[in-house]
């Protein structure tokens, strides 16, 4: 009985705080995405303006680690039993991916274009099977290029 009470408390706390944190994070992501939408970020290997002279390029990256709440973890555990899409992890990965790209963009605010964007995901699980905490790391990396001074005035930015 006691363990059930503890479990239910954890479940409710996990749900409430997980939902609050997620809502706050999504609001921040949306605001920053609007601010940074004008920085072209593509998976192309060559700059879009092929004729524009480039002054320099650099490797940029952004990464984030996000943990799952108790409620979502339990939901995923139940899903394990029946199979199917693990919907409870979807927002976690969506937030992590978008946050990593945002951080990448924020690391080079003066760049004219980011090329060759790549995203990698790894899970971070600490502890044994029973005490596992599900966290996900998303790493985004790419090449930031800067046009030479003369041509900057004509860049789409």
């Amino acid at each position: 009985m006691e363990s059930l009470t503890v479990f239910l408390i954890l479940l409710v706390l996990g749900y409430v705080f997980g939902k609050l944190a997620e809502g706050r994070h999504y609001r921040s992501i949306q605001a920053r995405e609007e601010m940074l939408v004008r920085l072209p970020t593509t998976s192309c290997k060559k700059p879009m303006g092929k004729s524009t002279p480039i002054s320099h390029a650099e490797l940029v990256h952004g990464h984030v680690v996000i943990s799952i709440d108790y409620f979502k973890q339990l939901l995923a555990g139940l899903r394990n039993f029946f199979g199917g899409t693990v919907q409870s992890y979807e927002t976690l990965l969506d937030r992590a991916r978008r946050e990593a790209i945002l951080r990448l963009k924020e690391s080079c605010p003066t760049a004219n274009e980011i090329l060759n964007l790549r995203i990698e995901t790894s899970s971070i699980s600490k502890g044994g099977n029973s005490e596992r905490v599900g966290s996900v790391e998303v790493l985004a990396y790419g090449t930031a290029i800067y046009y030479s001074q003369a041509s900057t005035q004509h860049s789409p930015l």
Partner: protein
Amino acid sequence: MNYEPSLPEHNDNVSLQHPVREFFVLVTGVLVFVLIGYWALGFVVDVAVDYLSSEQESKLLSKLDINWGFGEESMPEEQAKLQDLVDAFKPCLSLPYPITVSLVKSKMVNAMAVPGGKMVVFSGLLDSLSSTNGLMFILAHELGHFKNRDHLRLMGRGIVLSILAMLAFGGDSGISDILASTINLRTAKYSQSRESQADRTALHALQCHFGHVGGATELFETLQAEEEGIDLEFLHYFSTHPELQQRIDDLYRLSQELGYPTKGTQKLMKH
């Protein structure tokens, strides 16, 4: 190629289904699944127990050598008396093997049948009873458990439950907790029916030994008097034994059905 800055209108990567709804659907599914599994395996345990001979049982259990942690006997005289009372039921109950009684000093008003032909009586029980008949009914009730082999059935169910939980969830996480509580309710229900069965056996034994069933309800009536005033209604759901009043009523009804008379009881000699 021109870059056109724009953000997607909606997020296609996230499902719209409400997680709480998903949670309830999944939990219900798991519970139904497990309850069916538990019920089916419980049935298998019952069949297996019926097939298991008492020789096989003692052979199996002797290898287990379980330490029940009740300590050494502290009241050898009373214990010997209890043993005599238990032995007195021999002609009335066809028990598969001899039962040894252990008297444990404790305030608990209880007695239990443990696997391996051992009956544990807590001394609090002796203090709550005033008649030999009342005591012998409780002893016969525990003997009834041995006769009906309830200790094996419950142990079997316990093993089945642990295995189910381990297989499904690796014995961890909150899911096992939900499971355990649900199964506890089921087990409690099952135990209640076994307890009623043991009461029935005890009533037969009492009639056979004394020629009447006086004193059968003594302990329950004493306990009920103690409980009066405390609202225990909700506890009933979790309890493994039938509610006291129901138990008393059942015993009265059964003794009437069988035509067992109720006469005066013998006073219990205490030290």
